[in-house]
């Protein structure tokens, strides 16, 4: 797996669907015959993986939305894991 860089544009692979589930009070990732329940940070990152934002943009948007700084480390870590699981792909 190539290293993730700031200019890469992550998007959810077409195999997956991100959806809010009222009954579970959680965002879930749906795929053939399966489902992953996401925690809040994971969902907030994935919502921004729209194929238009680059990684730097995702980080900037999250930091503005949540009045936080220094989220880069967490975002890189999560995106690496998500790519490893096959949830997201990148354009650059």
């Amino acid at each position, binding site marked *: *797996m190539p290293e993730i860089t700031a200019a890469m544009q992550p998007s959810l692979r077409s195999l997956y669907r991100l*959806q809010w589930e009222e*009954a*579970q009070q959680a965002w879930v990732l*749906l795929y*053939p*015959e*399966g*489902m992953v329940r996401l925690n809040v940070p994971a969902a907030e990152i994935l919502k921004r993986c729209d194929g238009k934002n680059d990684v730097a943009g995702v980080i900037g948007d999250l930091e503005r939305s949540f009045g936080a700084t220094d989220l880069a480390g967490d975002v890189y870590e999560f995106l690496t894991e998500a790519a490893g699981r*096959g949830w997201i792909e990148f354009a650059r």
Partner: protein
Amino acid sequence: MAGSNSPADPSQRSQPRPPLWLLAELTYRCPLHCVYCSNPLDFASVQDELSTEEWKRVFREARALGAVQLGLSGGEPLLRDDLSELVAEAHALGFYSNLITSGVGLNEKRTAELKSAGLDHIQVSFQDSTKEVNDFLSSTRTFDLKLDVARLVKRHGYPMVLNVVLTRLNIDHIDRIIEMAIALEADFVELANAQYYGWAYLNRDQLLPTREQIEHAERVTREYRAKLEGRMKLFFVVPDYYADRPKACMNGWGSVFLSVAPDGLALPCQAARMLPGIAFPSVRRSSVREIWNESPAFNAYRGEGWMREPCRTCPERTKDFGGCRCQAYMLTGEAANADPVCSLSPHHALIADAVAAAQRPRAPVPRPLVFRERRASLSRSRNA
């Protein structure tokens, strides 16, 4: 106020967590006759399928309760002429819809129609990677057709899962099965050792693989898994007969899984219909919410209160829930017993003997396989 806390007050009983899965077995009709079919032996006596409107109501009620994964299965679900209409309803409700099919009945027009109705995924079954064995095990000439259908599914942009049930008759083809899946560009592959219920149980002695066969298949799968990382996911479902502990069947009875049979019977798993003494409720007479939350059938094996020894005090009971109630019933005659797959079960010899028999060479003239077909089913029906 104090009085309302009495445990007898149903309004105070804790509600079970909602179902996440709805398996809609739309019909038991099927053009295939697979020797390991999971449908009940007496499928042919089940008449009077739910109507389009009845299924839509079941979808709405299950979705409102929290179900989000929908399996459209059977039998062969493509035999329902209203499939696209049902898919459209499921899509509008926000289900992730999975069509679980033999592929028979899927053509260009229907594939496109289902896509525009919002179908999310198609699982195509193969019986083997060779025409001879595929066609033998299903007692049909369907192998070439299945290859065409798999290509059609990918051409229309669906995620595709390829499912192959493994038995001693095809498990040694594991490498060719995976190669076939690669060639067909499957996204996931389920290498599912047969679960010995229904027709598979009837044919168990002819179908159960040897230990050596299973170890070989696991080794080959591991090698391919490393090679295919990030491209294609391989799931290998281990046969529970060769495990030391039972599977966490359905993640627990009435825990996440709701199955509705073609005639509207609501079941905690497809096989549960065989259990005697449980009046399974029908979606024709009760709402899905009542069935899930209140029915004695869905509460029968929830939690731990029903457990006996060795499960009752076992530290692993929260992990495997005592295994499978249907398997306990089939083999020991009592659904509340520990699943005999467990080496701690006093009935474990029933499994150990079947496994030992599987290691011996086959008799020169083996017992014939019983194919899943109407006449064989009717002769096994209670009302026959």
